[in-house]
């Protein structure tokens, strides 16, 4: 296994407030890594920094992705290079059909990689196949991006986008928040279908439940801006028993 993502001693500030304080993490191709931690530990900040959101000031440290300096790349180039962030709160875009949005994104990525763009028919074929795999109705192709979607629909739409864009690094930011148990299952199954030797994932979550379905290879506890403990899936069970405080104190 080769390393896909290498985060070294990352320090990040938001509005002059230190959020990440020396975070280091390596993720290999094919690895599904779960990041758990209490509120305010910096989980979502990590997701935003990796995706390239404005307003996150990297003070020091480095992020290498597929051998390149990720922090130097603009957001759209990161996406074209295979970084995908599934949003905790997917953004509504009135007036833009979901299929238009996904096709624009897919073709922009392909163009950036020097690949031939998909025409409308090729795109529709692919989109139909992917929607079918995720047991999604095609009705939502025509619906405006995330507008009027239920919580579960929004998360499924994120997984659909992920499957269309076939990323190498998928970051799932609290994908389980706001989902009932059935929706959670469907979303997790959707993600599991996309797993491969190449894809690596960062699953950010509060709860053990999503991990029962996603079965991560590694679990990392993030507290106060740092990874304080790393282990296999049994760590989640310990966490369930002792709570974050217990683990943080033991570390």
């Amino acid at each position, binding site marked *: 296994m080769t390393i896909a993502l290498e985060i070294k001693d990352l320090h990040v500030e938001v509005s002059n407030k230190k959020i990440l304080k020396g975070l280091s993490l390596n993720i290999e191709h094919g690895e599904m890594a779960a990041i758990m931690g209490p509120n305010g530990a910096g989980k979502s900040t990590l997701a935003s920094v990796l995706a390239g959101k404005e307003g996150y000031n990297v003070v020091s440290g480095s992020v290498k992705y597929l051998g390149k300096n990720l922090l130097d790349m603009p957001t*759209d180039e990161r996406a074209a290079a295979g970084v995908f962030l599934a949003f905790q709160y997917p*953004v509504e875009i009135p007036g833009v059909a979901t299929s238009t949005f996904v096709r624009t994104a897919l073709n922009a*990525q392909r163009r950036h990689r020097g690949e031939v763009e998909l025409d409308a028919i090729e795109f529709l074929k692919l989109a139909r196949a992917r929607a079918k795999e995720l047991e999604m109705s095609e009705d939502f192709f025509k619906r405006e991006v995330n507008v009027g979607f239920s919580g579960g629909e929004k998360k499924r739409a994120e997984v659909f986008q992920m499957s269309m864009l076939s990323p190498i690094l998928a970051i799932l930011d609290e994908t389980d928040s706001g989902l009932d148990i059935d929706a959670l299952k469907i979303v997790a199954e959707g993600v599991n279908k996309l797993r491969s030797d190449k894809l690596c994932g960062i699953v950010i979550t509060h709860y053990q439940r999503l991990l029962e379905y996603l079965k991560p290879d590694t679990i990392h506890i993030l507290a106060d801006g740092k990874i304080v403990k790393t282990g296999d899936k049994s760590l989640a069970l310990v966490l369930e028993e002792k709570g974050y405080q217990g683990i943080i104190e033991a570390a």
Partner: protein
Amino acid sequence: MKNISDIKNRYYKSYNDILPNLPGLGLDWMKRLRDDAIKQFHQDGFPDKSVEEWNVNSFKGLTDTFYMTQQEDSYEIDYPSIEKKDAECLVRVIFHNGKIISIDHDELPKGVQVNSLKFFIKNNSDFLKEKIKPANEYSEARLSNIIDSRPQSIVALNAAFHEDGAIIHIDKNIEVPGYIELMHIGDYSENSMKHIRSVIFLDKGSKCEVIENIQGHKNNNTVFTSDVTDIHLSQGSSLSYNRFIRGNSKNIHVNNVHAQLDKGSEFICNSLINCDGQARNEVRINLLGEHAISNVNVLMMGKNKSLHETLTKVKHATKNTKSVQVIRTILDENSRGSFQGKIRVEEGADGTLAEMSGKSLLLSDQARVNAKPELEILADDVKCSHGVTVGTLSKEQLFYLQSRGIPEHEARKLLINSFSNTIISNFSNILIKRAENFILENYNEND
């Protein structure tokens, strides 16, 4: 800068010189209409900032410059550059420098008349007399009962100087097959003004679709255009009136629409306005008969130092009428815009439904927009709403699009289009066809 009252006097003085060239002098009532109108204009002058309807922006070159109507009649027209009318177009009227130079049509069905003002003066002047009211009736008083409100002096100037116009007259129960296009082109050799006076009359139960295609002038001379269109929809008739207004940086457009709606009639008024110069769009609607419905959709798109203004006044004069107004403004660079909308519900006009929504999108820090919605409700049982917003492109939305691999400029374009799509989807097909190509053209330039 020249004295404003001096300019006013010059128009007044030039009137007698120009008069012999204007149509309709053989008709007593029309001569009187012109005479009274120039007197009224001389009395009122151009609206200044003391007039509420004109106090947001200043129109450069409107009140401090004297324009002549251009007299030479037969100008060489480059016909091949004008595309042929398309198959769904029943009649196309081409105005060049404010005068009709061609009326192109297939065989007209019975009951459909589309012709020039001059033709009607000759052949059916009684109809015109009924539809073109004296200028002093085009006062705000015609819409609201406020006694001290001011007349529209640009309408008075138009009434005095109008040279031509298109008259559309549809007989009872006729559904016009295909649309009617009024195309305006121009190529002035000097600074000029032009006044167009048009009438659209739909008799009971008839139906018609019209598009005004107003293009920018070729030469770079300042041209002040006043378009006044009187619309009368009889009981149960339905008009879709569409305008695509363009112009170069030297164009000043002032367009006035006065629509009167009888019982059960329907008026759809769609405007796409993109002028590099200054454009003002005034729409006044009188819902006079029960169950009359009006829908106003306006999309203004400004760039550079352009100015776009829309003023709407909708009066619900009787029971159970409905009006919807949707105004969208997109401003880039140093452009300016304004929307003033007023809904007035008269006493006893119960069962009124009225909605007004104005949203503006500012694409640059220098762009400015003003919005003023007003409701005046004198009846008890009404449902009225208005909402006005001004915003910029959402950072959250931009980031979401970029995180999927869409480059920033493309993401901006997608969001701008999504903003305008909400109104373009209200437009009728003939305007959509033009608008879509146009918007692609317009925003590709920025790539």
